[in-house]
């Protein structure tokens, strides 16, 4: 760390330079440290979206919590969905501290979600109509999340890196929870196997979309360049998608499942997976809250937030502190 006599006297350029030196040296930035405006805004956008995706991500699985087929499965999925809420909590706290200088709180994050200004991950707009979907979410959606999240474990923003460390540790349990459901189905009756294959078919395109477009040319918006510049992450969307294929395609095939993409193969010469592109226009529609379940899930979140607003109002005064 360069020795600074009076930090406040530095010009904006000098501050910026010092900031870049710090992150390039692998130092972590903390909430109250000076940071460039676009760094703050990029983090807020990224982390608030990540946070709210966890919270919204609890909803597709929530359907299967009361319905899980045994006591052990009921307990396992309850713990898993609880963790999703927990991840949302950790990430919301990180986002809220970044937003505090702008005078924003959790209240505004929720408002932004309800207004449609704050997006959530494409996968959580999709239906989960069977028990196999619950298993598949744990196995492959969480698998995809592990790939993107481990990529940011060394993020330059300290609070985010610390939250991700906690999250990734729990994701290991999630992946195993999902694998356990999937394996029971894959080794089960004909009906169970079909249920699993159907779920894979249903989720495949959404899983490809999960990592985002390869470049901003595809959809007109991608934050990957700035996040790499500021050392929030290291790999591009496409690299992450390729990593996902490398880790999961062999496992999917080993279970006797068919990939719903006949063109999918590993090209030895190019050293990468060749696959059919998802419909990126559909992706744009989905994240604009026009996915199959977008409205329904937003309604669920909004209703529960307002319906019990009286609880928060009742305890918001100091007098309530017994």
């Amino acid at each position, binding site marked *: 760390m360069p020795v600074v006599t009076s930090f406040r006297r530095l010009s904006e350029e000098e501050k910026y330079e010092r900031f870049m030196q710090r992150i390039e040296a692998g130092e972590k930035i903390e909430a109250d440290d000076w940071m460039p405006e676009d760094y703050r805004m990029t983090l807020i956008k990224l982390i608030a979206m990540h946070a709210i995706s966890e919270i919204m991500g609890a909803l597709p699985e929530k359907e299967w919590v009361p319905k899980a087929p045994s006591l052990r499965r009921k307990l396992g999925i309850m713990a898993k969905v609880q963790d999703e809420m927990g991840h949302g909590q950790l990430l919301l706290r990180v986002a809220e501290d970044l937003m505090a200088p702008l005078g924003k709180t*959790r209240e505004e994050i929720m408002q932004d979600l309800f207004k449609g200004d704050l997006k959530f991950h494409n996968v959580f707009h999709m239906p989960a109509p069977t028990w196999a979907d619950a298993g598949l979410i744990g196995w492959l959606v969480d698998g995809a999340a592990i790939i993107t999240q481990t990529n940011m474990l060394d993020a330059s923003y300290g609070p985010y890196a610390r939250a991700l460390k906690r999250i990734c540790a729990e994701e290991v349990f999630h992946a195993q929870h999902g694998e356990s459901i999937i394996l029971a189905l894959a080794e089960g009756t004909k009906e169970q196997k079909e249920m699993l294959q159907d779920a894979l078919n249903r989720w495949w395109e959404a899983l490809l979309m999960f990592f985002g477009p390869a470049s901003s040319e595809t959809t007109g918006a991608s934050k990957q360049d700035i996040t790499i510049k500021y050392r929030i992450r290291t790999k591009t969307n496409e690299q992450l998608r390729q990593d996902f294929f490398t880790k999961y395609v062999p496992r999917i095939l080993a279970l006797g499942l068919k990939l719903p993409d006949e063109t999918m193969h590993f090209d030895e010469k190019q050293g990468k997976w060749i696959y059919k592109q998802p419909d990126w226009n559909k992706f744009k529609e989905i994240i604009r809250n026009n996915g199959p379940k977008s409205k329904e899930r937003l309604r669920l979140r909004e209703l529960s937030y307002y319906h019990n607003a009286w609880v928060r109002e009742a305890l918001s005064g100091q007098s309530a502190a017994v």
Partner: protein
Amino acid sequence: MSDGAKGFYQVFEVFSRKNDTAPLQHQFSLLAPNHEIALVMAQENFMRREPVSDIWVVKRSDIRMMTEEEKTSLQRLDNKDYRTTKGYGYLKKKWRQYEQQMLDEKEIFSWKGEIRR
């Protein structure tokens, strides 16, 4: 919605101790309207899978934190071996001359048990 609920969202820092001899460790922060509610939510938010023997919740506004600039005051030169055992390593050799063993950290911490002649 009204601003009425804003007071509900107070930031509390959560600290915990793994066992009775472990130091207090910072876990994370949470939002709660007051200390009591913060305390009943703390363990399940941050320590669902590990043992805990004590929890503290502290309102963040009661904490004096360092600014980025103040943190530069934490730097110091590496010339203070007189404060550590490193600066007294020669004693080992000295004691050997008197046919005695040096009382190092390992030796001293072993005294909590029975002291044998």
